[in-house]
């Protein structure tokens, strides 16, 4: 299993960053042949922040190509699977097995959440805009967020503290006052009522169902009311997110054209062949599918405003629906994926599996709302409720398993 793409130092207690986060002392390739060996002229704001907080930056952790896959299976640098073929996200394995304090990882399409669920680590995708995206490889800018993966909630909190905050270099970065809201409610008692999304939990396998039951038991034991609601409306987030993510991805990766940097085909006689062959030879199947899908969704005529436009409206509908739920509930409980384990065979036979399994991660991705993964389950809360969600994760940690 390939955990690191490059490793400058992996001292115990360091903070590792994934291959989507730019560093100036190690290459950043977004798991793609296109950017193999790419050295950035500048480092990500989150890297500067963890350094400023006194942490050593660990190795670059392996991710799938532009991090839109299930668990890193599309990486140019080798699979994230063990000898039995079981997939495991490297971003979770490094905190579980390699002694790093935490791993910063860009949550584009739910991969870090799936990795945390499978490895049973803790992961937070914070409220959109509270962690700078400056210096992260752009894919789906309207929803992707740098998250923190750790073995324990305490470690996660330490590193989160270091990376949240306003950044002038990111136009979507929220003010420091807004970011400070994350630090409120560190008592789990702020979460009084949790709704389990039945439309999602109905579809999961036995092991995942057991995780959900275990969570319910812990929550109820601690005085948190757990209800079941249908929540089918949330299933619409997947299709809309797939469109928005692919459209933005298609646009963002169009800069990799073989002209300025990155992979350039030796097989060309004119500019069209240079573009086509460079991209054909360097990009993998899942990425190509997403590019085609995204490109198609952005086409429109005077009469038909296209799938992208409709998906923007669905984003609004999903956000409004969730806002309504949060009037009654403090958090929504969702599975992270339908199975407790995936194999290489699953993704080999279905290259775009992550565009189906993201039905569970899309609601938080498309709305930018915070999501915590702990003990294999996912809690999604209202904006800035990150700290309260982590407090619930903490009691699970103490009493779960």
């Amino acid at each position, binding site marked *: 299993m390939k955990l690191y793409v490059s490793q400058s130092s992996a001292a115990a207690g360091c903070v590792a960053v994934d291959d989507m986060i730019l560093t100036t002392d190690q290459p950043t390739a977004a798991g793609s042949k296109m950017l193999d060996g790419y050295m950035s002229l500048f480092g990500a704001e989150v890297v500067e922040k963890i350094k400023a907080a006194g942490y050593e930056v660990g190795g670059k952790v392996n991710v799938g190509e532009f991090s839109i896959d299930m668990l890193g299976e599309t990486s140019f640098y080798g699979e994230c699977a063990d000898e039995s073929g079981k997939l495991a996200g490297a971003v979770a394995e490094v905190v579980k097995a390699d002694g790093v304090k935490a791993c910063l990882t860009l949550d584009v399409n739910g991969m870090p959440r799936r990795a945390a669920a499978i490895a049973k680590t803790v992961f937070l995708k914070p409220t959109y805009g509270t962690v700078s995206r400056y210096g992260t*490889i752009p894919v789906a*800018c309207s929803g992707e967020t740098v998250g923190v993966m750790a073995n324990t909630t305490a470690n996660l909190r330490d590193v989160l503290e270091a990376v949240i905050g306003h950044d002038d270099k*990111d136009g*979507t970065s929220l003010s420091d006052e807004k970011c400070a809201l994350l630090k409120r409610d560190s008592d789990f008692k702020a979460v009084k009522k949790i709704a389990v999304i039945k439309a999602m939990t109905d579809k999961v396998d036995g092991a995942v169902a057991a995780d959900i039951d275990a969570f319910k038991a812990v929550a109820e034991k601690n005085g948190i009311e757990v209800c079941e609601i249908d929540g089918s409306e949330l299933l619409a987030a997947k299709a809309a997110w797939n469109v928005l993510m692919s459209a933005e991805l298609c646009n963002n990766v*169009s800069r990799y*054209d073989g002209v300025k940097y990155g992979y350039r085909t030796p097989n060309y006689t004119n500019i069209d062949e240079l573009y086509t062959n460079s991209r054909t030879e360097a990009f993998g199947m899942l990425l190509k599918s997403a590019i085609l899908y995204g*490109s198609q969704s952005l086409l429109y005529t005077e009469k038909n405003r296209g799938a*992208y436009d409709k998906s923007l409206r669905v984003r609004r509908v999903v956000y409004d629906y969730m806002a309504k739920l949060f009037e009654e509930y403090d958090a929504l409980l969702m599975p992270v994926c339908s199975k407790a384990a995936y194999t290489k065979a699953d993704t080999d036979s279905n290259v775009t599996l992550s565009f189906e399994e993201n039905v569970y991660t899309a609601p938080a991705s498309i709305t930018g709302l915070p999501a915590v993964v702990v003990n294999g389950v996912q809690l999604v809360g209202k904006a800035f409720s990150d700290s309260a969600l982590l407090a619930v994760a903490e009691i699970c940690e103490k009493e779960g398993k």
Partner: protein
Amino acid sequence: MRYETVIGLEVHIELATESKIFCSCSAKFGGEQNDHVCPACCGMPGMLPIVNKHVVDLGMAAGMMLNCDINRVTTFDKKSYYYPDLPCSYQTTQWFAPVSVNGRVDIETSKGKKSIRIKQIHMEEDAGKLVHDDWTNTSLVDFNRTSVPLIEIVSQPDLSSAEEVIAYLERLRSLLRFAKVSECRMEQGSMRCDVNLSVRPEGSDVLGVRTEMKNMNSLSAIARAIEYETARHIDAIENGTEELVQETRRWDDTKGASFAMRNKETAGDYRYFPDPNVMPIVIDDEWFNTVKSNLPEFPEVKKARYIDELGLAEGDAEHLIQSRAFCDCFEGAYEVCGNAKEAANWLIFDCSKILNQKQQTVDQLNISGKALGELIKLVLDEKVSRANAKKILSAMFEEELDPAEYAKANGFIVSNDTGAMESVIAAVIAADPKSVNDYKNGKEKALMALFGKCMKELKGNCNPQVLREMLLKSIENA
């Protein structure tokens, strides 16, 4: 059959900002190739666009000068296409909510007055430049111009002749130079024009097949291209010489003909969508009013004021309003010296002459109105002679200086020391008895010679009237 030409223009204007639209690189013209670049404007991943507020100021100012409505919430969108001079393979522009919409520009031609409707003004980034080397058969890219801010002014198809197009472009240039939005220098490419043209039978309300000529950057070439393209369209319609298709054409000014480039993409092909990294820009009342209050008077309002209130001749007023720099300097000088006619003359004759010698344009005038006013005041108060004042003016073009102090330091202050004048006159008369006699015998010119010698001795620093009187008296007594 008689035909009419229907023309709409898309005018690209580079904004006069210090830095680029989304990064802090210099937006100045020139520089070594790829000198003004950073990871953001050469398309490296991870940099996020931060909007240069001054660009929005200028986009609003342009809209206000062209009678537009300002969109109080304006957004940036991405336009996708592949070209090696476009580092991200998308251009950030405004498609859904441009900064200014629904404007109007009034023009005047030999056929009278006309209003040209403005559809919209949007802000966007420029692309880079390809440099082809035929010798080595390579192409290189210069990213200095990438992300330099532009506005694109899109007119409705309200223009119908080359004369109107030129009147419209000159009007745009004058208004935008006045508002300091851009220098609008076609020869440097800071004003470029796409001409959309079609032809239809006179009086018809159906538009003909439209062709677009891109990146025109000289008024005379635009006029020739319009004549050519109109004739080509009519020929195609009347004689079936070719089938007209909607396409982009390149105008070759040396060959005097246009050539097809590629079929025009439709808007959908550009896959426009809102840039998620740039939050919608909200223009509140305070911002709106600040930009509005900084707008200059319209040139013709100024002209009327110069004539009616300050008593300038129409020709002089017209001359001044050709340049905002001249107007600013004129108004500053008038405020100090109180004599509009003098201030205008100094600018129109003396300053223009110096600019000419320096091969600079009127917009490059860099002397302050206050200093010019002080200089004029020295002349009007007879403290400095006109000839010496012109020397001081030349010096003012080289460095910022206080005219009075400079005059003092260089011995240009008129002396009313009649003793000194008397002794000079006496010496000149004594040295040239011939001229004295010539004058006495009726040769007027001889007096000028004597006067000139005295003036030279006194270095011009005397009141000429007084000198003349004293000289005459001395000759009589000689």
